[in-house]
């Protein structure tokens, strides 16, 4: 356990370093904007003085490293500045929109793991056969379309032609759930409103499934590939020589050891989902970070762009930390790295 904590501390340090790098990168990108952001924010009718005043407020008249210094100082106080689009603190905006996006991504992640890994396992067990080829085609199709295309197709099929699922939104308007965490699934349980919970789940399913399809495909392909490799290992033959049932060998001898290399990539797929959520949210009118993100990008709202990207990157780094932790827990080599022989 000590080894795991040590490893985690190391990863946390690296992640912090990387996040600092991300902030520099995004800050750099945001400051090469052609045109004066103050002018864009105030519109064409503002006077020169008004523009200069806002530019000074935003420290736009100072050298870029001083601007970055201001940014870091604000960040250390938990401030990301004021959004020129909403005229509210960026942190407030993000706190309002992020939970809806995270809820969507988390459910999609669960679908990805819950469907993708078993599909890959079945394909590997029947490798070379019909089932394997079927899974290969399905998972290749899954990764071959952007999630907004799946969103459109699923919506047409299961919301319009077969009206099984709702077309838009997070929950029906008849449910008024008190805002505690912003996660409707959590808030509805806190309020003890199980019907609201079910309703929120019902709204979540189609967008989450559309979002997860490429992840499902990736996870299935990866699991299959790693398992097929593991199936060549001597301990599989040994397990066979002991006459263990084929499914037991698949689960305990081929799947579990090959889960470790698969997990790293699954972490990356999770990252991709944080971005792809933007595409699905647009189709299902999901009140998440997407509309806000696109709006602030189109309006060149510097503080909001930097803040949004930083928060998403932080969420991604946290997801990867969790993956690292899981790997350490699954892999005895890491867990017991420092215990004596």
């Amino acid at each position: 356990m000590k080894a795991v904590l040590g490893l985690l501390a190391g990863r946390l340090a690296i992640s912090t370093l990387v996040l600092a790098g991300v902030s520099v990168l995004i800050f750099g990108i945001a400051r090469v904007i052609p045109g004066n952001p103050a002018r864009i924010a105030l519109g064409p009718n503002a006077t020169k003085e008004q523009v200069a005043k806002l530019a000074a407020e935003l420290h736009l008249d100072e050298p870029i490293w001083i601007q970055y210094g201001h940014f870091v100082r604000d960040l250390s106080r938990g401030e990301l500045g004021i959004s020129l689009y909403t005229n509210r603190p960026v942190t407030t905006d993000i706190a309002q929109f992020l939970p809806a996006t995270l809820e969507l991504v988390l459910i999609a992640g669960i679908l990805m793991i819950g469907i993708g890994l078993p599909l890959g396992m079945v394909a590997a067990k029947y490798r070379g056969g019909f089932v394997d080829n079927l899974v290969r085609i399905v998972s290749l199709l899954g990764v071959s379309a952007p999630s907004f295309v799946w969103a459109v197709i699923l919506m047409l099929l299961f919301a319009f032609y077969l009206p099984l699922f709702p077309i838009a939104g997070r929950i029906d308007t008849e449910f008024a759930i008190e805002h505690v965490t912003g996660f409707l699934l959590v808030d509805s349980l806190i309020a003890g409103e199980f019907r609201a919970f079910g309703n929120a789940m019902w709204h979540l399913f189609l967008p989450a499934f559309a979002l997860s399809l490429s992840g499902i495909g990736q996870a299935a392909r990866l699991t299959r590939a790693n398992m097929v490799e593991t199936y060549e290992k001597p301990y599989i033959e040994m397990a066979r020589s002991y006459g263990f049932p084929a499914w037991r060998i698949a689960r305990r001898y081929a799947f579990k050891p090959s889960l470790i290399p698969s997990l790293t990539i699954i972490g990356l797929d999770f990252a991709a989902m944080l971005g792809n959520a933007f595409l699905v949210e647009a189709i299902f009118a999901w009140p998440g970070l997407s509309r806000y993100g696109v709006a602030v990008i189109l309006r060149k709202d510097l503080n909001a762009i930097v803040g949004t990207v930083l928060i998403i990157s932080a969420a991604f780094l946290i997801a990867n930390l969790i993956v690292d932790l899981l790997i350490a827990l699954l892999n005895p080599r890491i867990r017991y790295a420092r215990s004596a022989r």
Partner: protein
Amino acid sequence: MTRMALEISDLRLSFEGITETTEVLHGISLSVAPEERVALVGESGSGKSVTARAVLGLLQSQKRVRMSGRIEFEGQDLAAMTSRQRQALRGSRLSMIFQDPVSSLNPVYRIQTQFHEVLKRDDPSISLEDAKRRIRPMLSEVSIAEPDRVLESFPFQLSGGMNQRVMIAMALINEPSLLIADEPGTALDVTVQDQTLRLMRRLVERRRAAVLFISHNLGIVREFSDRIYVIHTGRIVEEGPTDAVFANPGHPYTRALLAAVPRITGGDIPEIDENPSAYEAPRVVHAPAAGVA
């Protein structure tokens, strides 16, 4: 004649490739009497490991494999059994020791879990505690001084020799009547290999198990086995009691193998002159020594 532990007659086996079919066994016949230790000796690629896997029934389920001939285990025809029946034999009546002990144990489970799985083959409801109670004396038989520490360990935490002993104990804990040993310990260094072979010999004698010992190394085989089959490119070229084969090797290939025995036991795969035409000489059979088979 007593009922054989293992009797293989005219076993032919080929692998179907994309374009052609490769025949790897051209009619192998061999037998192992109860409690007898028989060696199958040949170079890598001679078909000895394939024979072992065919006996275990590990190849029959593969689509690319074509097999004919007869394999009888304790008088029962393996081909006549369902795959479920064959599976039931493995790990209980029939078990196998593999070449590389470290990679043959599952890296993500503790030794005790893996032992427990093996014991469940005989007694599906056995608890971990009962299993450990049965494993401890077995581990001390293979000279493992701290059985509990070893049971708690993962394979990578133990040395190669230790893993090898664990594997031997695992193979014998269900009291199989036939043990197949595929180049045991070749992956280990020479002294460790020697120790483990002695250990294995003592154990199989005590447990009255028959052994089919597969090796490329005649030096090791001489110390270990009662009888020898020499296999070359899928054919048995010479067979007989160990002493007789060593005293008077009849087949050119056997003579070449003997000339290539490393001075100390173990070492690398012997280098043998390519002399295929001479090796096609007819099979040499030595008269069985009195009292055996």
